[in-house]
Every structure is written in C-alpha cells, then in structure tokens.
C-alpha cells in the first residue's frame, strides 16, 4: 500500500512512463501522418476543395497537439474516433447549419464565382453586328477552325483564341477551293461536311477569335455572327448591366433582378439570413401540408411508443412466471420481428398490405367482405404505418420490460398481498411505477427514434398518399424528416431546396434535442458507476 502511494499522482494525469523506443515510434508516425496530411491539403486546395482542406487541416492540427502534448495523453486513445467524428459528423452538421441560412437549391446551386462567368458568357447580336456563312474543320486533337465568308464575299480563317485573319484558298497551309470557294482542306484539319457539323454539339459553344477583340460564334447551321457579351458584372456596385439596353440588375438574395422584376439565370448561393425559417413558419404555400405533417409527426411516435410498450409489457407480465411451459420457445418466436433487418420487414409489409393483391386484404375480403385501401386512403395509411410499427417495435419493449420486471423485488408483492391488494392495484401501484423508472429513458429514446423514423415512413409508401395541391411534395404519412428528404433529394419537378430542408432539420434537432436533454435530467444518466477513483 505504501509502495503504491507515490504512483498516485502519475496515474491521475493518466500518463505512465514511456520508453524511448515508443516515443521515437510516436514521432515517426506523426511525421508520416503530417506528410500525408500536407499532401492531401495541397491536392484539395489545388482542386478548389477549400472547405475540405480546412477540415483536414483542423484534424491534422488536433492530431499533432494530441500526440505531442503530454497532458493530452488520454485523447490519444480516441484520436482516430475524434478524427472521423469531426469529418463525418461535426463538419456535416456545421455545413447543414450554414446551408439553412442560404438559398442553396435548384437555381442557386453555384457559387457566385461560378455563376458570374456563366452569366457573362451569354451573348447577343448587336445592331450592326456582322454575320457570315461558315464551314467547320476539325483536327486530330478535337480543335476546330472556321472558314467564314461575309455577305460581301470576303473570306476569313478563324480559330478559338486567335485573331481572325483574312485568308484565301491556296494561301500557305490552306488547300484548294471547291466549286463554292471553300477550301477542301486546311493544314492539320479535316473538313466536316454540313451534316456532321450541324450535329456537332460542341460547335455552338466555341468562341472563335480573340476575346475582347472580335468574337464569332455559330448561331445556326447557315450563320455565324459577331456576338457580344450581353451582361457585364460590376464588382464595385455588385450589379449586372445588360449591354443591349443598359438595364441594371441588382443582386437580390442570390439572383440578379432588374427594377422591373426580370431575373438572370443562373442564380447563385448566398446567405439569406432567416428567410428559410420564416418560410417554414409563415409561407402560406407551406402551411397547409406542414400543419398536417407536424401533427402527424407527434401522433406517430406517441401512438407507436404507447402501443408497442403496452403490448410488450402485457406479454412480459403474462410470461414472467419462471416455470411457464415453453417459455424460451415462446420468447424466441415472439422476438422474430426484431431479428429481421428493418428494411426487409418493411418491404414485406408493403407487399402484405398491398390494397389490390395483398394477402391481408384477401383474408379480410373473405372474412368480412371489405378491406381498407391501406396505401391510398390517408387514414388507413396512417393506421397501416402504426400497425407495422407495432409489429416491428413490440419485441424490443417486451425484452426490456421483462428484464426490468425481474429486477422488482418480490417481497414488495408479498407485502401488498398481505395487505389485500387486488392484482390490478398491484400492477397500478407497484409494477408500473417501478417499471417506468427503469424503462422510462428507453421509452423516451424510442420516442426520439420514432420521431425521426425515416426508414419506415419512406420505405413503406414514401410518405404517401400525396396531399393534393401541396406547394411541395408531401404526403399524409410524411413526418418532418421524410419531408426534408423529399425537399432535398426528390424534387419531383419542383426543384430541390437544400436551404429550406436544412432549416427544417435544425428545427427537428431542437425538438429532439430538448426531449433528449429532458431525458437526461430526469434520469441519472450522468452519474457514473465508479466515481471512487
């Protein structure tokens, strides 16, 4: 005992004596890691992945601190876990929060730096702009050249990025003319016949000539014209000017918009403040389906938890008897729903509850002559989801309840029997309160799980049946998280809206986070088994 005493302070700091060899190994591995990280960050920056470079940089700095500072020794045990946590959990969360305050979505997918060149690429034919008839040539490398003939009969040779120069058949490098005065070949290039040139998808996008000097673009199979950039971006005022008529477009929430309301596409990503949250709460187009979705989002987990717990508990009590016959077999058969991967079970139920061919409806039709249309009627679709979730969820409740039941000391029951308590009183006054203390946190966890039970809602009938006339895709069994998924990934022709979807995710996070914190307060989760260190 007295020998162990001096060891104490060292153990508290968590560090034990480290041999020279292991220190050397640690430094060498850290240098290798750093070299890899620097290489990765350089690559990421060169490809324009700035955010990824920053995240990897943060992780690399964290690794160095953890493995160099002695007081960070305990974190060495979880360095890799923390790295993955930052990369795939924390960074995506920050990203989501950021996106919630932007207009990211269809029409606003690009950054401003990407969008402005696209806008400035748009061209128009100014008054007095010259047009030509054209013939295209292509070389082995896939580069093009144009032979241009003006209405006055002047001929030019144009290549992308080179000045357009007058040229004549028979000039050096230019082959002999055919009957129309067009050279049969140009040195290094192959002449394309009219059909081939018209079908070529690259040609209309190529700008021939020197940019800023004279640019010629193909407008249609018979005409190439001297086109000018239509829009010019002015960085100082953050506006775009239409060169054809002088109209000014102002930057309004990521779209250049004129005074008269005309807009230029594409728009770009920009921070729009609380707009998504305001839309979520106030937009009349969203309000109808949202009220329905939020209401159902609370009904669904509530009914699910109550029904699965009630059935699970009932089963647990019924077979709690230690010498009940076939106890083990019964339990094994009853937990089968729990043992099948959820996706498979849900798809199976989709087949069983199929309104036309499903076996459930065949049986119901035979027995009572009628059957609900599970997938098309809103009410029955909700009932079906709750039924399926009862089937999926009761075994878990049964398992945790029977575990908790066994921990209730039997002498309490004996005392109650002596006092003449009826079975119902015993259940109501002893079993239920004691059980709820033990499984209460699990019920809340199950509520939270079902609050975001995307798999069930989405795989069963994808949130259907659809709510008619909804501004966005929404169905009667949609919960917020499946609605978010549809907004973000399944536009259904209405355009994806990452911004709005992220904003709703954050609202969901606050609801679920509040429930979770409440759970921690009300249980002794934070207390630890052995604090006597």
């Amino acid at each position, binding site marked *: 005992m007295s020998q162990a005493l001096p*060891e104490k302070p060292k153990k508290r700091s968590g560090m034990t004596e480290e041999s020279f060899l292991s220190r050397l190994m640690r430094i060498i591995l850290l240098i290798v890691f750093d070299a890899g990280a620097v290489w990765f960050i350089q690559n990421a920056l060169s490809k324009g992945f700035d955010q990824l470079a920053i995240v990897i940089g943060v992780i690399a700095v964290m690794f160095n601190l953890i493995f160099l500072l002695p007081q960070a020794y305990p974190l060495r045990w979880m360095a890799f*876990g923390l790295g993955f946590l930052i990369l795939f959990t924390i960074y995506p969360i920050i990203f*989501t929060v950021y996106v919630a305050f932007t207009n990211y979505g269809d029409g606003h997918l690009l950054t401003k730096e990407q969008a402005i060149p696209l806008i400035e690429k748009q061209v128009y034919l100014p008054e007095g702009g010259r047009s030509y008839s054209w013939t295209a040539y292509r070389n082995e490398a896939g580069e093009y050249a144009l032979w241009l003939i003006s209405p006055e009969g002047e001929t030019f040779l144009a290549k992308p990025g080179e000045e357009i120069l007058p040229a004549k058949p028979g000039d050096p490098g230019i082959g002999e003319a055919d009957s129309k005065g067009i050279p049969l070949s140009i040195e290094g290039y192959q002449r394309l016949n009219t059909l081939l040139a018209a079908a070529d998808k690259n040609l209309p996008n190529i700008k021939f000539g020197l940019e800023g000097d004279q640019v010629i673009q193909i407008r249609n199979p018979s005409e190439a014209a001297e086109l000018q950039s239509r829009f010019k971006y002015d960085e100082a005022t953050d506006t775009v000017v239409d060169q054809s008529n002088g109209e000014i477009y102002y930057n309004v929430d990521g779209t250049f918009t004129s005074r008269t309301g005309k807009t230029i596409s594409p728009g770009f990503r920009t921070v729009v403040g609380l707009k998504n949250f305001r839309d979520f709460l106030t937009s009349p187009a969203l309000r109808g389906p949202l009220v329905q979705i939020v209401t159902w989002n609370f009904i669904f987990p509530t009914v699910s938890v109550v029904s699965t717990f009630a059935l699970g508990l009932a089963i647990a009590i019924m077979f709690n008897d230690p010498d009940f016959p076939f106890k083990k077999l019964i339990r094994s058969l009853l937990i089968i729903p729990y043992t099948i991967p959820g996706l*498979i079970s849900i798809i199976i139920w989709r087949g069983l509850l199929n309104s036309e061919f499903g076996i459930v409806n065949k049986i119901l039709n035979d027995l009572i002559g009628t059957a609900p249309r599970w997938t098309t009627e809103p009410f029955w679709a909700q009932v079906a989801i709750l039924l399926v979730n009862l089937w999926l969820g009761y075994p878990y409740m049964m398992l945790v309840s029977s575990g908790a039941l066994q921990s209730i000391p039997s002498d309490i029951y004996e005392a109650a029997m002596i006092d003449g308590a009826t079975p119902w009183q015993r259940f109501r006054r002893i079993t239920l309160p004691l059980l709820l203390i033990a499984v209460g946190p699990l019920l809340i966890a199950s509520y939270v799980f079902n609050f975001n039970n995307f798999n069930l809602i989405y795989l069963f009938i994808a949130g259907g049946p659809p709510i008619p006339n909804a501004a966005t895709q929404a169905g009667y069994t949609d919960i917020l998280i499946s609605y978010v998924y549809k907004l973000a990934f399944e536009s259904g022709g209405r355009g994806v809206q990452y911004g709005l979807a992220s904003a709703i995710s954050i609202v969901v996070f606050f609801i679920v986070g509040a429930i979770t914190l409440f759970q921690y307060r009300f249980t002794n989760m934070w207390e630890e088994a052995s604090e006597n260190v």
Partner: protein
Amino acid sequence: MSNLTRTFGALRSSQKFQKRFSIAMRLVIAVFLIAFSIFPVLWIVSASFDPSQSLATQESIIPRNASLQNYLRLFDKDPNYKFGDLVFQKWILNSVKVSGISTLLSLTITTMAAYAFSRMRFKGRVTMLKGILLIQVFPNLLALVAIYVIIFQFGEIIPALGLNTHAGLIMVYLGGSMGMNIWLMKGFLDTIPRDIDESGMVDGASHFQIFWHLILPLLRPILVVIGILSFIGTYGDFVLARILLNDVNQYTLMVGLQIFTAGQFDQKWGVFAAGALIGALPIMLIYLALQDQIVGGLTQGAVKG
C-alpha cells in the same frame, strides 16, 4: 380437524386448478401472438417457393407446385428469367465485407475511447461524454449532402476512397463509432474493479499493456454484444449506402433489395421473397442464438436503428 384439512385441500386444489387454467389461457393467447409475429415470415417463406412469383397469384400459405425456381432466378440460374443486371451473390458478399470491416474498426475505436473515458480523468471529459450523445441526436439525414460532397472530393484526390467505393462507405460508418456504444462500453468498464489496473501498474505495466493484457480479455462478453449489434446495424443500413454507391456491382444487399423492389413490385414478389429470406436468415439466427447476451446489452440502453 378433518373438516379443516379438507377445506385446505379443496382450496389448494382449486388454486392449482386456477393456476392451470390461467396457464392454459395464456398459452392460447401466446398462440395468437405468435401468429401475429411470424405470419409475415411464413408468407415470405411460402412466396419464395411459389414459382408463379406475382403477389396477385399467391393464394394460400402452402404454395402450389412448390419449387426452388425463385432461388434459381435470384442467382441468375434460370435461363428463362433475367434478374436484370443485378448480382445478388455480390450484394451479399459486399454487405458482409462492409459490415464486417466497419464493425471491427469501430469496435477498436469504441473500446479504446471507452477505456480512456473510464480509467483516466482529464479536462473536458464529462463535456465530451455528453457531447457525444447529443451530437447523435442531430438528424443526420441532411448531413447526407455534406457527406456526399466530402466523399466525392476524397475520390478526386484518392480514388480508392471516393464515391462508389466500399472503403469510402466504411469511412463514413466509422464517423458514427464515437456514439452511444461508448456509453455502453464505458458502463461495462466501470464495473471492472480498478484493483486489476493497479496491480498491473505496480508491476510497471504501461496503460496500453494493462488495457491489452488485463482489461481486454474481461471485455469479451460486451465486445460480442456490441459487435453483433453494430454488425447488424451496418448490415441493415440503406440510406448512406444508397447515396454513396451507384454501381450495381458495388451495392450492399439492402440497397440492392430496395432498388429491386422499386418498380412493379407486385410482379417481383417471389424473387424478392427468396432474396429477403436469404438476407434475413443469418441475422435471425445470430439473434436467436445469442438472445440472452443481446438482451443484456439492450436493456443497458441501445435502441435498434
């Protein structure tokens, strides 16, 4: 006196009768409950042997002309049936590979982190423990956009970790290894007496030696439980895999089955049933064989995902 004995006897026998009656009643209820529980499974078994293979034509629980045709179709051995470009056996291998590797790696991360949380005291420890739990509550569905972008960009730099690779998918799964399981593992570690550590320390063993030689062998039961739960969780995931994998040959089983059933589902019922059974059976057997251990792990707070 004899009167009294007789009354006692009658009481006893009536109690015995009552008990028997109650057990009989409960057995009847059990039969109904079991019917509810296994009825979908029975139908799937029946459908998998029913060669007519459409949802509409499945009439009774005992299939007419029972055959193995659906299983042959599943493995593309039926010359008259084309299972699309789908490759069922590959999906199974992919699933086992991805779940197996990510389970092993995440188990390593979880166990070592939990050991530090249980045995060492450091600044920010409690905050980190709470943070780990709270972060998992964030609805990570939307994070999919970011995760997709990260993996895409990784692939541009290191192609082996990019989209449509299993390594990339496994990496993403590892992001979740600092989660609820750390609490589960730490709870178990907290019950292992510290005298064990101290005896090692007196002998001059390093933390890692203590962890490796003394603690790890004691963790076997909980490692099995967490390992199985995490394997099953990964095996059953479809959202992440669906978004990150886009080549039929790379699909995991869940992605493959989901995509297979996407259109004209009622016409693919039989083949789906065979596939579902093959996909579900190993997991069912693991659960049933190890139910006692798994139940122990569950009651400590894991919710099946």
